[in-house]
């Protein structure tokens, strides 16, 4: 069990390391506006109200078509499509996004689900080249800001969530 923890933690530390500069830059921009709608962090850095607002706009442009205007996911999202792929799950805390660490959420959004589950086929595209790293972080911060508090607390307790924090 602990080995699996270490394995994932190590993986997420590496993914997080790729983002460290971006995240720190975002954090420095957000430092003047630390009073967001919720206590939201991403990869250990606080998400500002501005970045969450930017994330809301970007979510509507890039994510809502599949994940739903209100992040409710596609209908009957637990049942496989005729293509064999799974529908887009909710992002409002009723799905399973909160069971993924920040590093995994970032990697799946930027590089596609296959970055985390090798060989897995998904309708979700990789957003590398479409969205900047900071934009992906803004979207994910917006999503996290609208999870119920207990979902954020659950995600914060995941083994990979302590990876990538400054000073660690």
């Amino acid at each position: 069990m602990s080995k699996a923890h270490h394995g994932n933690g190590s993986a997420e530390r590496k993914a997080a390391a790729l983002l460290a500069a971006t995240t720190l830059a975002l954090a420095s921009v957000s430092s003047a506006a630390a009073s967001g709608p919720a206590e939201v962090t991403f990869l250990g850095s606080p998400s500002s109200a501005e970045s969450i607002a930017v994330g809301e706009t970007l979510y509507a442009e890039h994510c809502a078509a599949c994940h739903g205007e209100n992040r409710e996911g596609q209908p009957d999202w637990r049942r496989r499509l005729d293509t064999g792929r799974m529908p887009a799950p909710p992002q409002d805390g009723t799905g399973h996004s909160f069971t993924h660490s920040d590093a995994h959420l970032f990697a799946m959004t930027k590089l596609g689900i296959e970055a985390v589950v090798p060989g897995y086929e998904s309708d979700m595209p990789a957003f590398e080249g479409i969205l900047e790293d900071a934009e992906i972080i803004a979207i994910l911060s917006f999503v996290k800001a609208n999870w119920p508090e207990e979902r954020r607390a659950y995600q914060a307790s995941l083994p990979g969530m302590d990876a990538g924090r400054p000073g660690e």
Partner: protein
Amino acid sequence: MTDFTGFRFNRRALLRGAIGASIMAMAPQLRAATPAGYRALAFSGGGAVAAGDSFLTSEDGGATWRQGARPGASPVALAAHPERSGRLIVALEGGGVAVSDNRGETLILGGRGLPAAEISALATAARLPDTLYAAIPGDGLWRSEDAGESWEFVMDRPFIAGEERDVLSLASVDLASGMGGIWLYGGSTAGLQRVPDCFCRWQDVQPEHALDALVEGAEAPEPRPLPAGEPVRALISSAAAPSRLWAALPSGIWISADAGLTWETANAIAATALAGDPTNPDTLIAASPDGLFHSRDAGRSWTASTIL
């Protein structure tokens, strides 16, 4: 006049009877091979249970069995948890679930919310004794969080080689998924996959540092999966050593010591059900068309069990 002869005769007869009874008591009990038709197994309440047209119970790790209760409906799958002594969850032929708190003596129907279809696989969650998983062919995976009383749909079937596959066997494996929970392994009609118990996606068993390898471009450990395309009829994980798995395929019983990344064949028994003693990973039982078997060396060798 008192007939002492008769008395002497009776006393001799009594003496002979006593000696005979002593010899009988010292003689081994009559034993027979276990009959075929027992298709569900579990360890519960410190003993083992086999279910077919009747329940059999064993108090010696499956070496010998005794007749137990004869249920009204025929069980097709059993599940138990070491923290719920004596409790059996029973999937019934034709559909539905029943719960017994006395190893099958009495059954109480549950299964609210389940479709009217027969369950093909049943398992308890390793860390949550009242949480159960059931697979239904042509449908998917269902979960109960109240020991079988009510159920909800949680996940579709695995998608292997371009098709959805029915799950024939389930094992909750007490190893961290990295997503705040553990893994649920599913043996399907065409191989093995697993899903985190948050039910985000079925996936092949990957090396635990697969993402490290992707990031670094390093070589990941080489998986050695079960034979492609074979149905996984039974699948168990050791409660005492969760990385150890056993799978029953038509080609025999296979063993993994690394949570299903690599497998090796252990025995040619064509088992249809397996169960492991939660306190001792070396003690296993198997059901096959030839009867019941038991192993005391973690599945390497098997001995035909007997019924008393």
